[in-house]
């Protein structure tokens, strides 16, 4: 790789560079201006950086290149995922401005960590090599450990951080061991070269390769919080500061899925029977168990944590479907995440609106009479809940139908049936929030405190949730283009 090549490659990396620079500048800015008045300006500055990066991301749409000697790909798929991640980060920063003020922990490092974590996820979304994938993953994870424990005086936050840390390191160790086995058999860490090696006759058997594949799936399972490996995940989500929970329940999962979609259906397509089988079983138990746990929760935050786990299960159904028809399967996963992330970010945004000092506003009881206290927040929450549940006018319905249709087409009828049954069961806990809001009287009369920026952002999320349900055409087009870039 010569110098000229290096410079042109750097140009393709502009969105990531902008995010990194914003993070560095914010760090310096935070250091030289210690008064807490400036922190909201820091947040706005981070937001500006994210918007700029998103603009440059849009400009990359339509490119199809491999940069930095095949470490990263610049294609439509990466662009779609990066936009999802950037919008999530932007929303989380808006929520945090509110939340940190309420909790009285104004520290500038918070925004820097969110930015660096987003950078890691963007690298993951574009990674076509295990080296860049691993570093993106670790950058994301390390930032998230710190963010979990950010409220250093709160014991629950400490505990959440330590649990996430142990889980994360355990997952990394298993992941690296699995990667090493695959590397040993295939002789490369590059996805396309692994694909070539596996497609040779006789390349898709061998115990070492299969063990590596299983350990890779286990490692990803931990990172995506798939059921037998979810263990402490709900604890982590409950203890972390609420905006961070919103961030973690979308960002790392979406980024891991981006890697999984690049690796399993494309590079490891020769092994589709094996991973298809494992993922099918994982999807079934993930959806079912997470659903039943979500039924019993008293905290909305914890309920959303379990619902997030079950949604990963639904997305896994789409991944399983790629074993037969790659295009339909991949499209269904992308559409599913587009819908899931808008609704989930929105729901967490409403929880942040309800937050009071301490751990208030997270229980089901705190939603009592919200319809009277703040009709606007109640309406938004209803839209998001309906979308997560999958009721027709919202995007959630469409996404679920697509995933199930893909499963049926791929001859995984039983998986689709399990999915439908669970979607019906999930109505209980999603609608419970709505019932609390409209059919109970408020216990306190205090009005909600929110910044206009967050309100506008929530309106936009709700608008897209409905828009995707009513006019899905443009989003299908988006998913189709990104899948074509991948195949």
């Amino acid at each position, binding site marked *: 790789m010569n110098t000229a090549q290096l410079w042109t490659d750097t140009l393709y*990396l502009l969105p990531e560079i902008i995010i990194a620079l914003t993070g560095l500048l914010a*760090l310096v800015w935070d250091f030289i201006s210690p008064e807490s008045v400036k922190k909201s300006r820091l947040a706005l500055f981070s937001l500006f950086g994210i918007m700029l990066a998103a603009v440059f991301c849009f400009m990359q749409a339509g490119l199809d290149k491999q940069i930095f000697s095949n470490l990263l790909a610049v294609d439509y798929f990466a662009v779609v995922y990066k936009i999802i991640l950037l919008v999530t980060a932007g929303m989380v920063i808006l929520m945090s401005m509110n939340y940190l003020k309420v909790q009285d922990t104004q520290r500038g490092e918070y925004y820097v960590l969110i930015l660096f974590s987003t950078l890691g996820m963007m690298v993951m979304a574009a990674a076509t090599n295990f080296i860049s994938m691993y*570093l993106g993953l670790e950058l994301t994870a390390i930032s998230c450990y710190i963010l979990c*424990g950010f409220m250093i005086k709160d014991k629950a936050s400490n505990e959440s951080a330590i649990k996430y840390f142990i889980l994360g390191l355990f997952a990394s160790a298993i992941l690296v061991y699995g990667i090493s086995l695959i590397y040993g058999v295939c002789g490369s860490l590059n996805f396309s070269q692994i694909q070539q090696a596996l497609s040779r006759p006789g390349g898709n058997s061998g*115990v070492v390769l299969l063990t590596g594949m299983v350990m890779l799936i286990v490692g990803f399972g931990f990172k995506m919080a798939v059921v037998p490996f979810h263990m402490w995940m709900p604890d982590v989500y409950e203890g972390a500061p609420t905006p961070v929970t919103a961030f973690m329940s979308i960002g790392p999962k979406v980024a891991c899925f981006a890697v999984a979609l690049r690796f399993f259906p494309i590079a490891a397509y020769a092994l589709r029977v094996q991973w298809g089988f494992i993922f099918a079983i994982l999807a079934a138990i993930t959806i079912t168990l997470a659903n039943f746990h979500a039924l019993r929760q008293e905290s909305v935050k914890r309920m959303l944590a379990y619902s997030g786990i079950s949604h990963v299960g639904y997305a896994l159904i789409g991944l399983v479907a790629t074993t037969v028809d790659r295009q339909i399967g991949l499209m269904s996963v992308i559409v599913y995440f587009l819908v899931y992330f808008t609704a989930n970010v929105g729901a967490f945004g409403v929880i942040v609106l309800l937050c009071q000092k301490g751990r208030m506003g997270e229980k089901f009881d705190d939603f009592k009479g919200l319809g009277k206290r703040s009709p606007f927040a109640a309406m938004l929450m209803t839209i998001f809940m309906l979308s997560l549940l999958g009721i027709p006018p919202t995007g959630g319905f469409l996404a679920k139908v697509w995933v199930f249709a893909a499963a049926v087409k791929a001859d995984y009828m039983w998986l689709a049936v399990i999915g439908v049954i669970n979607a019906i069961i999930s109505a209980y806990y999603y609608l419970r929030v709505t019932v609390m809001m409209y059919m109970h009287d408020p216990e306190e009369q205090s009005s909600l405190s929110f910044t206009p920026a967050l309100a506008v952002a929530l309106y936009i999320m709700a608008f897209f949730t409905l828009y995707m349900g009513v006019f899905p055409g443009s989003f299908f087009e988006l998913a189709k283009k990104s899948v074509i870039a991948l195949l």
Partner: protein
Amino acid sequence: MSYIFFIIFSLIAIVSAIRVVCTKQLVHAILWLVVTFLSTACLFVMLHAEFLAAVQVLVYTGAIIILYVFAIMLTTPKEAKTIPQFYVRKIMPIVLGVLFFFQLAVMVLTRFDFIGKKGDLVAMMSKWGGNAEVLGKFLYTDYILPFELVSIILLVAIIGAVVLAIRRSS
């Protein structure tokens, strides 16, 4: 000859790893971990990865272990420096672990087909003069992007240490 060295170093690594898990004293466990890391570094040398062996000694045994010692000093009260030994309900993980090892061993010993393309590392090492030269060449050209990413990861770790471990007096 290389067999003898291999057996010596791997035996030291395994025995000290077992001591890490079985010892009662936290500080002893850390010292045994140092021995494991050092013998792994020796195995790296036998695999002609001399630079990595040096990194292993410097970073793992030098930096990380010192960190752990500090963490013990800062966090563990005196009477709690010994750890209770394992008891019956911990049999299950051990059985699982042993089964897992047999799975790995069987996998390795039965059949191992290399299906990729062989590289030319040996040729490069003799051409450029050694392991460190080849690694440097690659780190600063083909793998410059991960190299920069790692610098951000280290920065994040520093931020984390400052945020979590330093209390601002209010």
